[in-house]
């Protein structure tokens, strides 16, 4: 028997499975208890698991992320919810100067089983600072894993894997996808694979690499390209750091053209890293430059203009055509 869940329901289920299977797991965050989180991702969990495992914190991101680090030392496996993307910045020092460095500081002996859940990204008509895409920042910082699910199933599976991988994980949830349609998922999730990107659509002429909410855009573009007779592979990156090097090189070698889509600003984004990597390693296989369709280097626009800043099927198509005609 399978269930039909949207992404936020899948995350709720993944969290409850985590709490059931792992007595050391607990959830921390602002308004995650009775309120169930501002996105209801923890709805009902405090009732089920009690206020000692689903914990409302005061308003202090640095404080409770730092406390979660300390909890790891006494054997707990905290999963922290940051209410919205931009509110992770007060905890930046704890993540950069502390969480990412703990294993290294102990000569490799001890890692932190810490997950920081971060609803992120645009497209929800939210106020300022409720639509940031900060994944690049964390991917540039040593010692952290950066993971982004793209659909309900990957959300549940990768969440389990994140909590058990032994390294601190910044788990970015594309909030725009939270209620974007349901998907059949098994009654209990299996641990997802944090190390590999997934080919969600096969293709030979071009590869579009995306993650999170941009998968939808990539697939939409692939569909349109198919109608033009262009066979487009769509690769769901899932792990922003580390990158799945093999899948990236393979995509370049097998399709000759690679296009990267992300919401985050363009300058020094993931698209830049992928483009740099491919031209370093498989330049000869590339039939065209690796183009980037990304967010802009400006504060994410308020709702009236957010569609102007978000990568769209049209922008992806334009880039794809440029590459195919190159």
């Amino acid at each position, binding site marked *: 028997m399978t269930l039909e869940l949207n992404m936020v329901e899948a995350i709720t289920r993944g969290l409850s499975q985590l709490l059931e299977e792992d007595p050391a797991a607990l959830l921390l965050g602002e308004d995650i208890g009775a309120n169930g989180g*501002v996105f209801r991702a923890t709805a009902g969990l405090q009732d089920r698991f009690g206020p000692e495992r689903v914990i409302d914190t005061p308003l202090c991101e640095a404080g409770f992320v730092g406390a979660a680090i300390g909890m790891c030392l006494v054997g707990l496996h905290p999963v922290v919810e940051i209410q919205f993307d931009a509110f992770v910045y*007060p905890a930046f020092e704890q993540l950069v100067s502390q969480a990412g460095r703990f294993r290294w500081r102990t000569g490799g002996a001890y890692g932190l089983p810490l997950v920081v859940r971060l609803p992120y990204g645009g497209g929800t008509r939210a106020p300022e600072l409720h639509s940031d895409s900060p994944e690049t920042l964390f991917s540039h910082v040593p010692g952290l894993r950066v993971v982004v699910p793209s659909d309900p199933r990957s959300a549940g599976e990768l969440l389990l894997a994140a909590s058990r991988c032994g390294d601190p994980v910044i788990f970015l949830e594309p909030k725009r996808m939270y209620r974007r349609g349901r998907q059949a998922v098994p009654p209990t999730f299996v641990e997802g694979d944090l190390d590999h990107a997934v080919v969600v659509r096969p293709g030979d002429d071009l590869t579009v690499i995306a993650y999170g909410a941009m998968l939808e855009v990539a697939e939409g573009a692939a569909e349109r390209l198919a109608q033009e007779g262009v066979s487009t592979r769509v690769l769901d990156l899932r792990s922003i750091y580390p990158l799945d090097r093999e899948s990236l090189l393979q995509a370049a070698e097998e399709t000759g053209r690679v296009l990267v889509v992300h919401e985050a600003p363009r300058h020094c984004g993931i698209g830049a890293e992928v483009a740099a990597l491919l031209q370093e390693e498989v330049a000869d296989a590339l039939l065209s430059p690796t183009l980037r369709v990304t967010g802009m280097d400006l504060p994410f626009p308020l*709702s009236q203009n957010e569609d102007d800043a978000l990568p769209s099927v049209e922008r992806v198509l334009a880039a794809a055509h440029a590459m195919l005609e190159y």
Partner: protein
Amino acid sequence: MGTPPKLTGAPPSSARGPAAGAPGAELLEGAITVLGLPEPEMVAALSSWPRERALDLFTAIAQLRAFDERAVILQRQGRIGTYPTFYGEEAVQVASVRALQNQDWLFPTYRQTAVATLRGCPPLVPLLMWRGHPGGWHDVMKYRVAPICVPVATNFPHAVGAAWGAKLRHQELVALAYGGDGSTSAGDFHEACNLAAVMGAPVIFLITNNQWAISTPVSRQTKVRRVAEKAAGYGMPGVRVDAFDVFACYQVVQEAAERARRGEGPTLIEAIGYRLGPHGTADEPSLYRDQIADRLWEPMEPVRRTRLALVAAGLASEEELNQILAEAAAELRDIGDAVESCSPASIQEIAGSVHRETPWELLPEGLWEPTWTGCGDAGGAP
């Protein structure tokens, strides 16, 4: 969702305090109040207020209320986005603006999005912001009101810097930063208070303790539910006042401003209230608090409470006050059309507003200069 369920049946006869059994009512004990005094004393206290000033305060409250109710309607109509109502906080907000002078700086949060209108900013401007229009920013220099601050507590250091900087430049100026009970848990609150006290910055930290941070009760926010008690740890005075009392709040802010102007440094004001509405239009309080108990605070609702007091004190008649309310509401009746008719900005214009000289990176396709037209006065300044 914008306003809570109204009291059914007859309104409570008195507006001295919340109805018996109101949650957290004990926090009001010892707080400075005028409207909370027994009626004879309250009337005596109000008699010292000039009628013009009293009516001005009521008018400003009426204007904020009209804005808030209109905004909630526009949100329900889908003409603006999610909106954080300040229903019930009109009194303390009005007092904070009126007790200061026009050269003094204000540092509002998402909860005080209309305070700039009390300094002459067209109400259209904050409404445009909530609509998600890039023209929805008031002219910060013209009104000396900082941009609306979304990340909790990050506005406190700004106020300290403005006040401290003015002191260094020997400008006679006070800065006031707004915050809530939740904001006092954040590091920036602490760093700002400490820095202000050490530097003797002429700044006022006005914390409205509405006893909730979204779903988090103040009892879970801090073990010291009386926020003003935190002031001593910084070596500054902490004052507790009735947040639903425009007269008491006015006095307290005025005194803090005088201290600051005398060079005696910062003050922490705790305005004790209760969040009568939801956190915002997307919030569902029934999930986490007892809506029936909440209604016990309704008697404190500032429009009604102030009106009762002014009438009791003979400073105004029920009729003229209702007239003021009606006019304030009428002012904004059609503003939704203005909000909608404001032509959208292009992404090129927005890209041109980030740096003094726009880098090529911002818009590979080409660059334009920002030219906000027909949208209040946001960004209109040189």
